[in-house]
């Protein structure tokens, strides 16, 4: 390709302008990656934490657990020993331990705290199961029912799997919208738009160059997110992850259009970037970029359907980590394309060559 053609000359000029703007690079690339590190590190350690149990004196029930059951017990409880019941209960009260366990004759007594509700429930449920299991074993008759549990998701589905597509969606939305908003306003203010209008290059060439650079940045973000997620946090992509690429491309166009809208409405570069921020950041929260929407009220989930970022996030989750087929990306793609067209038309209608 001819590097001196107007298209490439413009693309290179825009790319250089972006890469040399430290603030832009930080907010488009480094900042979202910081969130990935934060979320990936923060939540991955949480699900490994065990229940701290103080065993007071001798508790024959758990000391004589049959093979298999003692392994399951060790998975749930971290056991320390003590002979002082009052001290053990005091430790539970202060939160240094989750449960103090003693046995008086045939009675198992668990002193627990309600401050950590999840652990309190786990403690009661698990201990009850062990007591029941032991009762059945003592009775000598074989158990009639048995329970087998199976997780529906891929075994590798950890926090990082959920976090990466959402944060990536936010990062792409942010850099596409900010880039378009700042370029449109900046070029309008310096009259570079006017100057280009007088040069023998079509508007199409200018727009194509700007889109090409934004897409290149978005694909670079994708590579960085996947690379860092896989290298540092064990991110594993499911089969049709490559369908994330068309999603990213159409999503980028959609958020560029949003940026153009902000750039067309605002009167200064700062105003355009702030407006883009105002549109993108709440949308990221409401579209499940930072936390899953499953637990949020139904009205909020319905509202998020009118936000393009939600569809980008959902589409990427489906194909990147939920293991769905390529077809899962089709509906989000169509919705994003429709958003892109509507917002572009709106931005075009509001577009002015100059700020006057």
């Amino acid at each position, binding site marked *: 390709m001819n590097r*001196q053609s107007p298209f490439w000359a413009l693309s290179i*000029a825009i790319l250089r302008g972006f890469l*040399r703007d430290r603030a832009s690079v930080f907010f488009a690339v480094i900042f979202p990656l910081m969130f990935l590190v934060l979320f990936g590190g923060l939540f991955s350690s949480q699900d490994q934490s065990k229940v701290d149990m103080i065993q007071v004196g001798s508790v024959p029930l758990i000391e004589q657990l049959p093979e298999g059951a003692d392994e399951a017990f060790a998975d749930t409880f971290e056991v320390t020993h003590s002979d002082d019941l009052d001290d053990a209960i005091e430790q539970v009260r202060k939160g240094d331990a989750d449960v103090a366990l003693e046995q008086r004759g045939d009675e198992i007594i668990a002193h627990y705290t309600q401050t950590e509700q999840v652990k309190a429930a786990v403690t009661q449920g698990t201990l009850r199961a062990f007591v029941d299991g032991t009762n059945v074993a003592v009775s000598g008759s074989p158990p009639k029912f048995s329970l087998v549990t199976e997780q529906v998701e891929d075994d590798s589905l950890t926090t990082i799997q959920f976090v990466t597509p959402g944060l990536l969606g936010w990062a792409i939305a942010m850099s596409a919208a900010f880039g378009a908003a700042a370029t449109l306003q*900046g070029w309008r203010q310096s009259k570079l738009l*006017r*100057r*280009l209008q*007088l040069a*023998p290059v079509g508007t199409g060439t200018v727009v194509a160059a700007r889109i090409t650079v934004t897409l290149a940045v978005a694909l670079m973000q994708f590579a960085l997110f996947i690379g860092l997620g896989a290298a540092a946090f064990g991110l594993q992509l499911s089969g049709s992850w490559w369908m994330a690429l068309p999603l990213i491309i159409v999503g980028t166009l959609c958020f560029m259009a949003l940026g153009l809208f902000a750039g067309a409405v605002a009167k200064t570069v700062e105003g355009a970037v702030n407006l883009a921020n105002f549109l993108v950041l709440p949308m990221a929260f409401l579209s499940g970029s930072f936390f899953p929407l499953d637990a949020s009220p139904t009205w909020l989930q319905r509202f998020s359907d009118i936000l393009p970022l939600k569809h980008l996030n959902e589409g990427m989750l489906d194909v990147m980590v939920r293991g769905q087929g390529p077809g899962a990306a089709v509906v989000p793609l169509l919705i994003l394309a429709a958003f892109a067209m509507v917002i572009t038309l709106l931005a075009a209608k509001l577009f002015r060559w100059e700020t006057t």
Partner: protein
Amino acid sequence: MTTAIHVTGLTKRYGDLVAVDDVSLDVAEGEFVGVLGPNGAGKTTLLEMVEGLRRPDAGGVEVLGEAVWPRNPRLQPRIGVQLQASSFFERLTAREQIRTFASLYGVGQATADEWVERVGLTDKADTRVEDLSGGQAQRLSIACALVHDPELVFLDEPTAALDPQARRNLWDLLSSINDSGRTVVLTTHYMDEAEVLCDRVAVMDHGRILQFDSPAALVRGLDAPARIRVAPGSLTVEQASAIAGVIETRDDADGVVLVTRDPAGVIGVLAAGDHLDGVTVQTGTLEDVFLSLTGREYRA
């Protein structure tokens, strides 16, 4: 001589304000033409309509034999434009900037690099445009307008916001750009600049062109009296007033000023009386022209 610019009855209104009011003018090929007027006179609007950036409300523009509106791709490679603001790509160096503009016009990088040298920016070739001084940025901006060797160049206030030293430095560059027969149209609000650089000057105010002629002809047409100043002490006010042809005299710390429409005759009398010590003669300037055309002092 062929016509480079042919403008008839050009008018542009913004609401109630008539920015350009029924302007007609012709510029011949190879001419260096100045449009002179205070801020808000309508110079930039006039220029932007001639360049094809703005659609006139009325009137017609023909540049190099082509219509300028709507956007005319045949015309664009033949004209060069420097807009009032420094229209640069953000964060590119001077060299990258001019190479980018060269590429837009299909001009090679070697030519672009030559222009960096021609406008005296070799030392600053690797400096980002944001770090250039006002004068350097204007040089670069002129180079970007000329890199594709256009037949006709528009320069909109190239010396605005420059200090007097930088302004004069730029004059050499400006006066050289029509050496090769290029037509140049320049707007300015500096009288001295128009006088030094331009073959013809259009004096503009309130959207109208008041006069359009060479600076010398404008001053001549003014028929302004000359001011002859003699050194202090060589002549009294009474003696000065007695000289035939002196209309008015003034006495100040720098000497006596004699106002006359017959400077040759008065100087002859002064010479005969041996009063020529430190004599200076000041004839009319474009500032006087402006004053007489608009009835008010020139405010830049």
